[in-house]
């Protein structure tokens, strides 16, 4: 399969990333969207997609963020933001909710990341900075708990250091758990066989390959 290079445009912004991910979520999938940017994906799921959102604090078929008098302190998402309930929702306790996740019943989980390795290792919970207070939340459960784990992130840090790496240097969240990485400059498949570029945005494949310290499968110099 050849790589599609979108060179007539710049890199994707976070809403374009969210839209791209939403487009790749199968009809009727059960999906968990991680805290932060991944929640944007919900805005791009079209009506009739049949996608059911799970929030690990005990709910299926979560609706959009609550507005004004919809706000109910007993109804929040994993980011502790007030949300709403869609028809056909259900509530369950934390052990049942994580059993659902860890038992592999969710189809897709979308997460942010500090680093992803070409083999799908994920680092998204701890920078490893000395003195940082560790806080994992549900990250490690989410990482291993869905049939497919998509990462949504910028490809480079503010200091222009690549976040797609040959091996994570930050403390790991999960081993070999990520299957796809959506970034501003490119979408990648990652896994046991290594990383492969699916699409690029605002950058040529050869330039991308030079900026990364990762062997890209299917990329011929």
């Amino acid at each position, binding site marked *: 399969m050849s790589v599609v290079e979108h060179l007539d445009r710049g890199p994707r912004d976070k809403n374009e990333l969210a839209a791209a991910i939403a487009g790749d979520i199968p009809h009727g999938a*059960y999906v968990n969207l991680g805290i932060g940017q991944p929640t944007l994906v919900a805005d791009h799921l079209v009506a009739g997609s*049949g996608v059911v959102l799970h929030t690990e604090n005990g709910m299926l078929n979560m609706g959009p963020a609550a507005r004004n008098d919809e706000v109910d302190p007993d109804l929040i998402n994993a980011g502790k933001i007030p949300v709403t309930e869609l028809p056909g929702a*259900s509530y*369950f306790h934390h052990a049942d909710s994580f059993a659902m996740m860890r038992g592999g019943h969710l189809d897709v989980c979308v997460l942010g990341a500090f680093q992803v390795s070409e083999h799908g290792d994920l680092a998204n919970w701890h920078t490893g900075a000395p003195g940082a207070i560790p806080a994992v939340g549900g990250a490690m459960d989410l990482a291993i708990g869905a049939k497919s784990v998509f990462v949504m992130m910028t490809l480079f840090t503010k200091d222009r250091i690549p976040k797609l790496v040959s091996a994570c240097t930050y403390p790991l969240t999960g081993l070999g758990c990520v299957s796809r990485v959506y970034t501003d400059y490119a979408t990648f498949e990652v896994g046991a066989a290594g990383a492969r570029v699916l699409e690029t945005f605002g950058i040529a494949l050869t330039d991308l390959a030079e900026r990364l310290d990762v062997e890209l499968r299917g990329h011929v110099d």
Partner: protein
Amino acid sequence: MSPRVVSDPDEAVAGIEDSSTVLVGGFGMAGMPVTLIDALIRSGASDLTVVSNNAGNGDTGLAALLAAGRVRKVICSFPRQSDSWVFDRLYREGQVELEVVPQGNLAERMRAAGAGIGAFFCPTGVGTPLAEGKETREFNGRIYVLELPISGDVALIAAHTGDRMGNLTYRKTARNFGPVMATAARRTIVEVGRVVEIGAIDPEVVVTPGIYTDTLLDLAAVRKGGS
């Protein structure tokens, strides 16, 4: 995916392959998916491993499945009942294998399968013949036996009401193994007394969330001769 809602029992069980492990709900007749079992017999699927609390009674249901020679192995807690003559005969003739599992282990091992637990240390059965050859370990001065998950290729269960997203409620002690088996099988087929529209079940009272339901057989429609 929202479940397929069907009104034909044969369609509900279509695709169950030979040599499958089939989890069958019910405790006694309460919660027994009789319509689905009858359809499974008609389907011809054979060489099955059946996981259920009992090994059939009388001549119908699981007993009929056994009598038809479709079952290679039974995993259950209580095969021997006053009217389990079909199983008793096949067992004594060596026609069917038996794994007896304490009832709590049966439930917990399926729960483990559904919850992604690799194995667990369990207090039941320590020092008994059913723990022979199994690994034991002491935690906090008590001895436990290592038990492995039991998962199914298919679960056949009965529920009271299901909505079109597959959310289920049960009725009284007919709940029993249904909610656990629904989580433990790759494919869960449910016969329900009635199918209701989405939104008709209060989200607080859902027992099995729709994520676990793959096929919903509408018994009300079956009775009407399909719809």
